[in-house]
Every structure is written in C-alpha cells, then in structure tokens.
C-alpha cells in the first residue's frame, strides 16, 4: 500500500501574484531613479545655446565674430540679470608691462580693496566673493599658517600686520601650464587671462596656483541689477557663468585704458602702487628700485609681478 498520492501541481493563479507586484514596484522605482539621474541634462540644454556651444576660442575669433559674441553676451546678461551692460574686447597696449606693489608698513587691513574688487568685478553677492584676500599676520613672521583671512575686529590690531593677496600675474604661471584646454594664457602686458566660455571648469589651475588666486564659480553669480557694473570686458569683469574659473585681471578693462585698478583707488592709506614697469619714471619703478621689496613663495619660481615692500 502506498500513501504517496499523486499531487497535481497547483493551478496557475490568474490575476496579480506577489511576484508581479514586486516586479511592478521594482520597475517603477527603477524608472524614477533613471529619470532623476538624467534630469540635469534637461537643464543643460536650457542654459547653453547653440551659439555658445559652437563659439571658438578667444584667440581664434575674428573681429566680426568677436562683436557678435559680445552682443550675444550683452543680450544674455539683459535676459538673466535685467541689466543693460556694455562688454568690450580691450586689447593690451604696446610697451606696457604691469607691476603692482603693496606697502606692508601702511596697509591697515580695512579690506576696502576687497570690497572695491567685489563691486567692480560683478561678484556673487551672497558669498561676498573677491579676488583679494587680506591676511592678518603676526608681526615678525611671514608664516601663513598663523595668518587669518577672516578677522572681523577693529584694525589695525596690535602686534599684527596685514597682507592682501591676489593674483600675482606670474611671469612663469603654473596655472597656464596645467590648463588642459588652453583656456588661460598670459598676455603681452603681463596679465594672465581666462576665456570664460572656453574654460571647462576642471579646476586644475586652482590646484596649481600657489596663492589660491583662482576661484571657481560653484553657482551662478547672483547680483541685483542696480549693483551690476555695466562697464565690462570680455576677459575681465563680465558676469561669469556657473562652472568657470575666474581671477584678478588687474582690472584690465580699466588699466588698459590708463586708469587705476579698483583696489588701488579704494585704498584709503595709499598702500598700493601700480604702473608700467617698462616706464623708467613710473611710480612702480621707483618702488622697485628704492624699497626693500620681496615676493611671495619665491622658491617656487613663479616670478610674480606683484611685490611687497616695507617703508624702512
């Protein structure tokens, strides 16, 4: 006698099984995750126009193409910020090599230079960004590890001196060497410039710069329309977009027309001296020839065009 009976397989259930439900939920979640992952690509097409995508490098633009680019940029600024600006392509002058000197005996650390830079160069307002960082250093030492760039008390404090640091416009610039796309180069009047539309935002230059002169636009700069400086240049203070590098340009939209950079005009103590190093009668030449000058991180061989000096 056998108690094993033939058991028929259970009939296939019709309708929704647990397995089907799990498959459905899994597929929905997968589709949602996929959609979220490619969502930034939809924003990308909104921000980049075809003209911008196809724009050539600054050095390859003909004068007519450059004018078209400038008008397009002005229109974009008007659309995005609500401000009418005038962007120019300001070229370097012949026989000019800029030098900048800073008198450490006189700087009181008021940060008016940083504030002027912030307003002149159309920086993002929420971060109070500026190309100039002023370090409060211990008197008697040049140890930057003891330097503090975030002081917020009455200046000058006892026992401290103040050292503003900005792009040194090096003659042997490491940032230019590391750029993989040649978006940055040194012009013949000494200024190291960036083509913001060519820059891919890899930040190699930021890593290479020993002075942390190069800043990255982590987000689109936010500036109220009435605070935008409308006198702009392609290579200097036009409003940069998210994802490009930027740096001090010695206000080339001003200095290439003979004006002082904004930081110098704002300095209340007259600690800053700027001019053409090739002119033997210039103020900067007087400082370089008669004062005790030094440069930062000289051992790195960057050969800066920014000098520091003491009076005595």
């Amino acid at each position, binding site marked *: 006698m056998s108690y094993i009976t033939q058991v028929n397989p259970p009939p296939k259930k019709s309708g929704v099984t647990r397995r089907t439900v799990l498959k459905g939920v899994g597929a929905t979640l997968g589709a949602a995750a996929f959609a979220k992952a490619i969502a930034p690509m939809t924003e990308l097409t909104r921000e980049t126009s075809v003209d911008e995508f196809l724009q050539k490098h600054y050095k390859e633009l003909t004068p007519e193409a450059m004018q078209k680019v400038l008008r397009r940029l002005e229109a974009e600024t008007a659309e995005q910020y609500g401000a009418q600006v005038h962007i120019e392509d300001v070229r370097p002058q012949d026989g000019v090599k800029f030098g900048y000197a800073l008198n450490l005996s006189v700087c009181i650390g*008021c940060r008016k230079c940083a504030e002027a830079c912030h307003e002149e160069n159309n920086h993002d307002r929420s971060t109070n960004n*500026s190309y100039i960082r002023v370090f409060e250093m211990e008197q008697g030492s040049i140890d930057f590890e003891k330097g503090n760039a975030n002081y917020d008390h009455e200046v000058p404090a006892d026992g401290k001196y103040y050292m503003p640091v900005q792009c040194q416009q090096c003659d042997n610039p490491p940032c230019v060497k590391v750029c993989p796309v040649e978006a940055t180069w040194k012009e013949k009047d000494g200024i190291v410039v960036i083509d913001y539309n060519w820059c891919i935002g890899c930040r190699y230059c930021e890593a290479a710069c020993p002075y942390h002169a190069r800043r990255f636009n982590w987000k689109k700069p936010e500036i109220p329309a009435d605070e935008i400086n409308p006198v702009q240049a392609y290579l200097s203070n036009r409003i940069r977009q998210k994802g490009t590098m930027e740096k001090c340009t010695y206000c080339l939209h001003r200095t290439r027309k*003979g004006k*002082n950079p904004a930081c110098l005009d704002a300095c209340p103590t*007259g*600690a800053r001296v700027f*001019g053409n190093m090739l002119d033997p009668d210039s103020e900067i030449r007087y*400082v370089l020839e*008669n004062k005790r000058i030094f440069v930062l991180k000289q051992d790195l061989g960057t050969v800066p065009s920014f000098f520091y000096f003491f009076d005595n």
Partner: protein
Amino acid sequence: MPISVSTGRAIVAALLLATGLLGCDSPPSEAPSEGANLAPSDAAPKRFGTTIIASRELGTLATRVGEEQFAGVMCSTCHTLDIDKTPAEYPGELEDFHTGMKFTHGTLTCNSCHNPDDRNTLRAANGKVVEFADTMELCGQCHGPKLRDYHRGAHGGMNGYWDLDQGPRTRNNCVNCHDPHAPVFPKMMPAPPPRDRFFGGPNNH
C-alpha cells in the same frame, strides 16, 4: 703629463689674477636715485596733470555755530586781541581754549609749526612763513623721506589714472589722512570677510 708644483702654483696665481681683473666692474655710470630728485627729471611732459586736493578747509578752526553746524573761523579773529597772558608753549599748558583737541605729535611745541606773529600762517624751522595751503612743505621739513616718497607715488595713494597720458589724477594733501595734532592714521572697522557658501559667516579654516 704631470706638472711640477711650482708650475702649478704659477698657473693658479695667473688664473686668480685674470679672474680678479675680469671681475672688476666699471663703476656704475648713474648716481643712485635715492634722495636725488623730487620729481622725475627729463621725462616728456604728460598730457594730464596731478591735482592735490585738501579734504578740509585749511587755516580755519571749525567752530560750532548751531546745533549741528560748524563754521570755519579765522585764527586772527581771536589772536589779534591784546590779552595780557603768557601764551602756552606746550599743548598741556592750554587752559581756556583749544583744550578739547588731542595732541599726540610727539614733544612739539605749538610754535614749532604755528607762527606766533601771524596766527593765520605757519612757520618753518628757518623762520620762513608758510601759508596753510602749503602745509605739505612744513610737514616735509621733518618728514623728508616721506615727502620724497609721496612725490614719487609711493605714499599717500591716488585716484584716477596710472597713465597720465590718458587721464588726470588727484592726490591727497598730508592733512587729509594725518591730523597734524594727532597724526596717527585712525583705526576703523574693516569691510566684512568672505562668507561660506553653506553656513554663512566666515569660514572656519
């Protein structure tokens, strides 16, 4: 081929002599520029000029005339009166007037700069009368290196153009920044530091 000691010594001596003669540079052709001239000498004249602007009315005393109003009063308004009193020599001796002012310019007497014969003017150390408008000359008699630096652009700042062929420039008078009685540059609160993107306030590194 081996060289004898005496020949070797002769060769070394000759080399040293040659190096010494070659290493002597001709004396520098230019005299050092320090202290030589106040302004660049044989430069072609620039198209634009430099204007020195004094930020306050020089040569008058700011005196309150109303609740919030001040008027400039000429020194001779009071100082031509015949008063039988020994004039104070040092700021500490002042009793009735000018007592609210701060005096921290070292151990100078009042008449180091002020002209006792004509209080509307100043007086240099050699007795020369200096108008208030020319006060920079007076500051420069003691602070010569600073005045030289000022004229060469290394002190006192400027507004305008670095290139005077393209635009003009304005500069400060000494007293714009330095109160002659308390010349130390005043302290101030700085402009705000950079803010962290996420936490606001200064970064913590």
